[in-house]
């Protein structure tokens, strides 16, 4: 199931904004995790790195492929989920909470608002 309160990218990243905050939390959808197969490695960026909307910010490696993850908004990385690299099973167990990957301080929050809504993302998955 696709959580209703989140926003999405075509490339299967989810983005969460806490109420009125400029901080956007980013993770990977259930569907993408399923497609990747067993995840074996996550290469995190560093706090302070600048990211650009729809550009890659880190690499995730499964037994099948090493794939890039794309940023939903432009801004600066303010937090990374370091514990996740040691507990990759969290991706399967809790993709939308404990398996968050990075938090970005958005330069322009309008970029977040313009992301895909849950219904649209669901439609993409079915399409």
């Amino acid at each position, binding site marked *: 199931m696709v959580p209703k309160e989140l926003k999405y990218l075509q490339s299967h990243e989810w983005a969460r904004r806490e109420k009125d905050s400029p901080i956007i939390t980013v993770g990977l959808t259930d569907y993408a995790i399923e497609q990747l197969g067993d995840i074996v*490695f996550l*290469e995190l960026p*560093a706090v302070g790195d600048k990211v650009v909307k729809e550009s890659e910010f880190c690499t995730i*490696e*499964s*037994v*099948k*492929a*090493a794939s*890039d993850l794309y940023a939903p908004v432009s801004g600066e990385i303010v937090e990374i989920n370091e514990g996740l690299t040691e507990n990759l099973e969290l991706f399967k167990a809790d993709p939308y909470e404990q398996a968050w990957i990075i938090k970005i301080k958005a330069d322009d929050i309008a970029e977040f608002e313009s992301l895909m809504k849950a219904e649209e993302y669901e439609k993409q998955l079915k399409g």
Partner: protein
Amino acid sequence: MPFIANTAQQRKQMLSEIGLSMDELFSDISSELMRENFNLPDQVGEMEVVKCLAELAQKNSTHLTCFLGGGFYDHFIPSAVYSIISRSEFYTAYTPYQPELSQGTLQGMYEYQSMICRLCGTEAANASLYDGGTALYEAMMMALRITRRNKIIIDDSVNPIYRVMIQSYTRNLNIELDKSHCTTGLANRDEIMSLLDEDTGAVILQNPNFFGCIDDFTEIAEAAHKKGALLIVSCYPISLGILKTPGEMGADIVTGEGQSLGIPMSFGGPYLGFMATRMKYVRKMPGRIVGKTTDTKGREGYVLTLQTREQHIRRDKATSNICSNEALCALTASVYLSLLGKDGLKETAQLCADKASYAYQRLTSIPAVKQRFKGKWFFNEFVIDLPTDAAEVIGSLIEKGFAAGFPLSRYYNNMENSMLIAVTEKRTKQEIGMLAEALEAVL
């Protein structure tokens, strides 16, 4: 190599299949790079071709007694090496992507990796790279990926050919290359320490260095680590039979040219780059890695591992796109090392060192010959200063049947009269004596 037919009729057919003309097919190549012709002679019969090529081959001076080193060395190769590697099961340079068909080759590569690790004193090695120079470049890029920095310090006692390669590869990559200058025969610690800062990704050194001197980089490794930088050491594998390993010195990435491990010297190769590192950096290491595993029935087997970082899967985003491996040369190295064994390698290294030491004494006892780096330890290569231009002296010694050494003026200022001489286990006391006499005669 098989003969592949390519008739006008076939070319026409292939072009019409893809719907292009010959010009369109090669339109990506800019016109100034396109040649009208290559000045090739008209076709002749096989007999004439063989005669012509044999005559050309005879121009090579393969009869010279070799004291020439500088990165490639004239070591003895047991005949069994070639007999084993030329078995048809082994005789290919191709990467065994399909493990179920390639267990023998994969096991050979796994053993090669294990031997490189033991030689270098490191935890993990890849299945080889193109040559010593590209291996060093790849190590540098790897260090910059790990540290996310863009400054490199390289001492000019690192093989100048490697340094030129690094310059060519990095010219357009926004990498700052800082050079420290070797004046005493050893890496310039003061300069390295003053250049080291929070932007430095790696310090690149070589042991034994290009002048043959032996160094211990332990304190440089510690200083680099304190600043968050890595130490990369390029080394000469035979010397590791008796020398302290780069791993023991604290090197993070170790590379080198593997030619000395059973591969003949030939102009242009094929040669063998090796690379080893700490386990924690293994995912940042370019190139193929063979791992040992068990199959569904619990039997031991070998596979290429961590392939998802590699160019056949990750294309332009791969860890490297010039990490061509040298599978057959790597196999050669592992066969050579197996045949020598632990004691044989030690003995070979000791023989090189002893004979070089004898040659040094013999040559520097010639009154006109001076020691360049007096009091410094060396492995099997050393620098002497002549009273005259070294390149000219080396030229006259070729006529006397010696490839006597390398003229350092080729890459270093103010070393016009300096010459680098290498001695391997193949050189006899008599040959060393004859070189000394010939040198004395031309001075």
